[in-house]
């Protein structure tokens, strides 16, 4: 009986040590695997896989217009993922970046909505600051519940995202609805000074991309070089060592959540003050969730995250292309994202474990 199960059920056995090469290879392998699986899925759906692959993976790079859209998408993904990764390294699981992103957008919109006539170059920087503040405030709710009442931050932050989405709906259907907007749930169009200046003319890429890259570098310095980043990592790797050394756990939770909230809030502000130009319901397209995948796919390392954000942005734009040219359903991108995360988790599991078929045990049975 035991010989039977031992022979046919493989078990996961922990490797002595994860090799560096395997660790580095895991994300690209996951990406390749997810691509293959999804292309097969498109074949099953009766689409031409070559056309889909072309539209999805190549077209984004083929014209400057498409590629500039990729650059535009990178912004929020990269920013949110960098913020989240810091928390994840500290084992503080902020799953509610989406809500913090929405609050950032709302806070930033307050100025153009309340002062549509205001002018001056101060407006967009102040909007970005307000957005950052909004995201941080929303995250601080989670931090408070976690530190004070030990409420699980995964659940609290996730549920607060739903609250944030409803709050956005309320504003857009009520007090902040554009009176001349034919009853659409959206705010007034923002004035010129409430928009982040364009970086590359002829595209929608704006100055916030520079900001995002600067903050990525800052995140790298913070996590690899700074003492505070070190303390957060100790708290994540060995909580008892952190309390032995006197690193305050509550403080680490607050900091992790606030950093994540700031980054997501800033991304939200940059979105309304950038490509959208007004507050609309469609700002909430799941960047906050996609960024979780980006963060893990980048190995929670600031440099890796830049690469994974690029991949994810290509996926978004390529997915849009494929929707048009290969008639792919809108859910395809989500499915791709989901399978990508799944493939990555499996790949990571194999970095740490190996499958064992128990051959030896089987043979030695009398």
């Amino acid at each position, binding site marked *: 009986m*035991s010989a039977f199960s031992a022979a046919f059920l493989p*078990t996961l*056995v922990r490797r*002595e*040590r994860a090799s560096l090469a395997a660790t580095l290879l895991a994300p690209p392998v996951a990406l390749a695997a997810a691509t293959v699986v999804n292309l097969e899925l498109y074949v099953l759906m009766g689409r031409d896989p070559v056309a889909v692959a072309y539209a999805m993976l190549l077209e984004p790079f083929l014209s400057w217009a498409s590629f500039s859209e990729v650059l535009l998408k990178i912004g929020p993904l990269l920013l949110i993922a960098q913020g989240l990764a810091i928390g994840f390294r500290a084992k503080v699981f902020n799953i509610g970046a989406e809500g913090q992103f929405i609050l950032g957008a709302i806070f930033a919109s307050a100025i153009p909505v309340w002062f549509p006539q205001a002018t001056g170059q101060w407006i967009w920087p102040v909007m970005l600051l307000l957005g950052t503040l909004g995201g941080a405030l929303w995250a601080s709710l989670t931090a408070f519940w976690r530190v004070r009442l030990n409420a699980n931050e995964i659940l609290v932050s996730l549920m607060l995202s739903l609250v944030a989405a409803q709050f956005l709906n309320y504003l857009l259907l009520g007090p902040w609805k554009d009176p001349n907007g034919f009853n659409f749930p959206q705010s007034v169009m923002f004035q010129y000074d409430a928009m982040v200046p364009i970086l590359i003319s002829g595209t929608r890429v704006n100055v916030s991309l520079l900001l995002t890259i600067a903050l990525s570098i800052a995140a790298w*310095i913070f996590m690899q*070089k*700074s*003492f*505070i980043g*070190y303390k957060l*990592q*100790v708290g994540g*790797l*060995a909580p*008892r*060592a952190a*309390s*032995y*050394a*006197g*690193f*305050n756990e509550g403080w680490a939770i607050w900091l992790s959540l606030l950093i994540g909230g700031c980054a997501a809030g800033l991304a939200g502000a940059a979105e309304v003050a950038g490509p959208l130009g007004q507050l609309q319901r469609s700002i909430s397209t799941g960047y906050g969730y996609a960024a979780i995948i980006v963060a893990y796919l980048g190995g929670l390392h600031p440099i890796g995250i830049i690469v994974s954000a690029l991949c994810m942005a290509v996926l978004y734009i390529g997915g849009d292309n494929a929707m048009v040219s290969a008639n792919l359903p809108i859910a395809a991108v989500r499915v791709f994202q989901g399978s990508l995360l799944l493939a990555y988790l499996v790949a990571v599991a194999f970095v740490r474990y190996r499958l*064992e078929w*128990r051959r*030896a*045990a089987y043979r*030695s049975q009398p």
Partner: protein
Amino acid sequence: MTAPLLSLRGISKSYGQIRANQGIDLDVAPQSIHAILGENGAGKSTLMKLIYGVEQPDVGTVVWDGEPLSVASPAEARRKGIGMVFQHFSLFETLTVVENIQLVVPGRKADLTQRIRTLGRDFGLEVDPLAHVHPLSVGERQRVEIIRCLMTNPKLLILDEPTSVLPPQSVDKLFDTLRRLRDGGVSILFISHKLEEIRAICDRATILRGGRVTGHVDPREYDAHDLARMMIGRDMPEPMPALPQSGGEKRLEIIGLDYQPDDPFAVPLSDISLTVRAGEILGIAGISGNGQSELAALISGEAVLPREQRDRIYMMGKDVGRLDAAARRLLGFAFVPEDRHGRGAVPEMSLVLNSLLTAHPLNLIRHGLVNKTKATAFTNACILQYDVRTPGPEAEAGALSGGNLQKFIVGRETMLSPKLLFVAQPTWGVDIGAASAIRRRLITLRNEGMAILVISEELEELFELCDSIQVLHHGTLSPPLVTQATRPEEIGRYMIGAHTASQTADRKALP
């Protein structure tokens, strides 16, 4: 000679550059208790892990019961009849004792609970089967590990330093158990740094040095001194004499401390009082599980007192009961905890980063950034002074052998030149050469005026180190006993609580 139960031929294992085992030949006879001797980092644990299937040898053959064997995993080793108790424990902290055992031993929970109780009583390894593991001290965890291993009825039992944190009474009982098992047909591989133990119980010994076998002997034919010389390749240094000191200032004072932990399985402390002065070493003896972890956490600041409890714990003359660990360190306090993996050190981080854990106030941080050069210099100094055997400061703490990591942590904490040093189990798992070096260092520091508090289960160690000893039993502390005027048997009586009645009488007699 009968055919060996287990025989290894030409076993080698390397970790990158480090050749942990090289061409090892070893025969374990049936019904034999076989010692593996060697310095820290000699490769003892590695060899045991190869036998138990945790790791695979690079080359070499294993013959088990006359048949070639390759074990791919511990589960398989257990099926073959090999059991092992690791040097570093492998219990799940969030589960109870019996749940941990259930993971390895089949059976209903109620039955297992009963068996754990009976086995514990028979073998002198009492633990509460329903207690959660996380509040248990290392000594109690070790008991759980040993019971768990015994319950799998192995034919070969591997014990990697099973007695390092067991008190003498339990060691005696464990040895009775091991002898009984041997007579019942079990072979035992036994690793220990305590040579007297090895002479008492083992009928064969294999000596490892630098990953190679340097000899097979019958330990009963040599005295501990000879064995030590074979192991470390030189003579043992003499203990450091303690200079006479007249009582310095009070560096740590605990006055009538009562503590009721949140965890129902943790030991409540009642009416704890002690004083450690500059230039003095105070020892706390006792069987672990009598409140040692709770007391240690309260002194280190990992646990703080509730708001109402004031004026209970003083360090350098300040009431610190509600200060956290960092604030206490700022006052000149340093601490070596009993568990090194995950508390005293972060196993996944390099030694340099582990230096930073508590040594960061030594100017290792500049403008909020880690000063890598200085941190590395500090780490190198620690490695050199405390003879930590490691490829270098960038090695991961988790890759060091147990004793070497202990040396590193002790080194790091003493290099902070604290006013008050608190060491729990100072020489746990450290080989005799290094242990005597650590004890010499502690006495030197005492002679230079440091106040030192030591918790240990090893009475001999306490007698060598301490000016006075207090015994912790069931969460209460005996009055201080001046070491020179006390016999070990007296401490032993306090340890099992036989002294309680007269102790209260003593207290009353004091003005």
